[in-house]
């Protein structure tokens, strides 16, 4: 195994200290540490955060390896400071059996850049009609605990109720993509002032809020855990706040792009802004930021959705929905939440590591940066300023809305169980000492 001595890192933005990593664990934290480590890192000005955990990543493998593979997706994750990602189930074939989730899990193990925790489909083929073999997926090597038909809403109330009840047997959680299908037929962007002017089919906020309202009531009724994917409206925040105030076991996530971008950008008709759920209004962005700050929204999740160029380099109506996000997430969160004074770095660690790991029941991740803990770490330079250049991305796709924009911060290094996957901002072969 390898050892690293990280000098003068600010742990969660606190005072500068040295961190000694030996054999996968944080062995010592203190000032003026001396050790004969394999690699000595000057971390002056860098913040040490626990390795980030993403609850919502699309790795596209199996089936759409032209957009992303488990290898390229986890490389992108490492470059973004992630040590664990939940891989969504909408692959080809759908991850609705023990076989497929094990395949994805093993590909993650082999790649070695970050832990891949497959999400199992709630229903067979994501069709919303028949429960998938949730127990078999849990019992597999992948040990699935998060189930989602993401991209499709489990809109049948009975199926949703049964799923919520069933996963209680193995402490699972159903992560719902809240989108009432009839209210969003033909929808292409947020319904509001801009959609009216652009003549694009509107996606009303109420289509998300109505499902969330129903689901929190169902979860409360059966006493289950519910997780709400990519919350995007102010009204959704209010419903989740109300459910939490009732003491119900409801958690929620928000994407980095919903914390920063608004539907005004759609005026360009550039499909890079086409995403599901759609970009909303400035008022919604404000509400989402406040909710993340006060903990109503538990986690930031990327909804990293890679698409090849031909699926985006076209007219709006036929373009695929989604944007990549793993490599820019921490920078966007710094801009939207930290630089605005809404969240401390401790808060960032909570929303991007501790809580997502807890929701996904990922042991070994989301742990504090302290002695004896697994060395899942990210060193981040918050003072860095640079222009986003998608050509430098590790992800196989380039559908980022931030191309050419100046975003703050940069991941300097990422460690997965004491092994560097990124050093000086560049990928390194897991296990390779630089």
């Amino acid at each position, binding site marked *: 195994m390898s050892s690293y001595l990280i000098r003068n890192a600010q742990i969660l933005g606190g005072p500068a200290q040295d961190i000694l990593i030996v054999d996968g664990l944080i062995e010592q934290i203190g000032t003026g540490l001396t050790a004969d480590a394999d690699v000595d890192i000057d971390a002056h000005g860098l913040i040490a955060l626990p390795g980030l955990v993403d609850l919502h990543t699309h790795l596209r493998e199996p089936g759409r390896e032209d957009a992303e593979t488990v290898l390229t997706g986890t490389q992108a994750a490492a470059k973004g400071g992630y040590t664990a990602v939940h891989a969504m189930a909408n692959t080809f074939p759908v991850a609705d059996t023990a076989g497929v989730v094990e395949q994805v899990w093993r590909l993650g193990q082999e790649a070695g850049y970050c832990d891949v925790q497959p999400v199992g489909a709630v229903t067979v083929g994501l069709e919303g009609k028949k429960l998938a073999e949730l127990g078999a997926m849990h019992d597999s090597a992948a040990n699935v605990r998060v189930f989602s038909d993401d991209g499709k809403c489990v809109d049948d109330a009975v199926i949703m109720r049964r799923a919520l009840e069933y996963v209680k047997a193995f402490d699972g959680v159903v992560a719902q993509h809240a989108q009432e299908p009839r209210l969003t037929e033909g929808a*292409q962007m947020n*319904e*509001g*002032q*801009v*959609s*009216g*002017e*652009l*003549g*694009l089919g*509107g996606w*009303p906020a109420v289509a998300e809020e109505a499902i969330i309202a129903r689901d929190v009531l169902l979860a409360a009724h059966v006493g289950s855990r519910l997780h709400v994917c990519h919350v995007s409206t102010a009204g959704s925040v209010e419903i989740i706040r109300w459910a939490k105030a009732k003491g119900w076991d409801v958690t929620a996530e928000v994407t980095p792009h919903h914390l920063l971008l608004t539907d005004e950008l759609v005026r*360009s*008709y*550039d499909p890079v802004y086409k995403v599901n759920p759609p970009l909303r209004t400035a008022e919604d962005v404000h509400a989402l930021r406040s909710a993340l700050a006060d903990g109503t929204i538990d986690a930031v999740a990327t909804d990293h959705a890679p698409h090849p160029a*031909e699926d985006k*380099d*076209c*007219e*709006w*109506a*036929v373009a695929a929905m989604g944007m990549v996000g793993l490599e820019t997430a921490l920078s966007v969160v710094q801009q939207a939440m930290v630089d605005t004074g809404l969240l401390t770095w401790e808060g960032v660690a909570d929303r991007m590591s501790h809580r997502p790991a807890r929701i996904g029941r990922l042991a070994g991740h989301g742990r504090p940066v302290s002695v004896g803990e697994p060395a899942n770490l990210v060193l981040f330079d918050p003072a860095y300023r640079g222009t986003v250049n998608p050509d430098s991305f590790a992800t196989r796709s380039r559908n980022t809305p931030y191309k050419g924009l100046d975003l703050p911060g940069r991941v300097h290094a990422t460690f997965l169980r004491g092994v560097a996957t990124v050093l000086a901002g560049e990928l390194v072969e897991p296990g390779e000492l630089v």
Partner: protein
Amino acid sequence: MKRHLVSAADLSRDDALLILDTAEELAQLSGRAVKKLPTLRGRTVVNLFFEDSTRTKTSFEVAEKRLSADVINFAAKGSSVSKGESLKDTALTLQAMGADAVVIRHHASGAPARLAQSDWLHGSVINAGDGTHEHPTQALLDAFTMRRHLNPGLGKDLNGRRITIVGDVLHSRVARSNVLLLNTLGAQVTFVAPPTLLPIGIDNWPCEVSYDLDATLAKSDALMLLRVQRERMNAAFFPTEREYSRRYGMDGLRMARLPEHAIVMHPGPMVRGMEITAEVADSPRCTAVEQVANGVSIRMAVLYLLLGGATLADNHSTNTSEAAK
């Protein structure tokens, strides 16, 4: 003027008046035995129609031919598009063929904007109707028709004129372009429709909104009917055709309550018996057929000004302002 005409918002008041005045002069051509000018000789204009259209496509084609342009008609049906070719590759093909302008109609809102903003094409892009977004040349021909009836003369605008637009505003590209252009020209627009056929956010548009057609009749200088697509009924936008007709259809009784000088307009095709009775459609106050004729003049003017470039536009501006004096 800008290089492209994608939205009515692309037009300043001066641009719009220049097009209307140019169209006024070009309209004289239709009365001549030889209806042709050599203005666009050697220039290639492609009509790129991804959606069926007889009226608009023919109108553009006549306009292009009257200006002596080389015209290529490209219909999506039966073409490489039906084999799965993307808009980008189609555009690159047209670019390689040396298209100086592309007149595009597309079922997707924003397709012309995408084409204009991309580097796929170097020529001008003229929006001939995109999804439920805009149809700027329709708005120009409507304004041209209104000016002829309500405030004739070169250099004149529609300042203070009250225009009522009735029907399916939600799905109407004609309505969106009209409200922008008519405001630019100083007119006051009122939309009349059931609430289900008005877009969310219309409160912030530069117009008034009413659910009551009868209340607007007496104060309308022009009343424009929009086509209601029968398939909308399945989506519960309104209960029955009969109820729609009763509340928002134009008949003889309603026409009689318009001011004497007011005109009734329709972009076509008209659904007789539902939106408009035969009595109104065939009356001398209905300008539907005249609008078709004016469409050719307007499209000639747009092509002439966009492809003629700034020099032509400047010269023309001087001529028309002198004429206006």
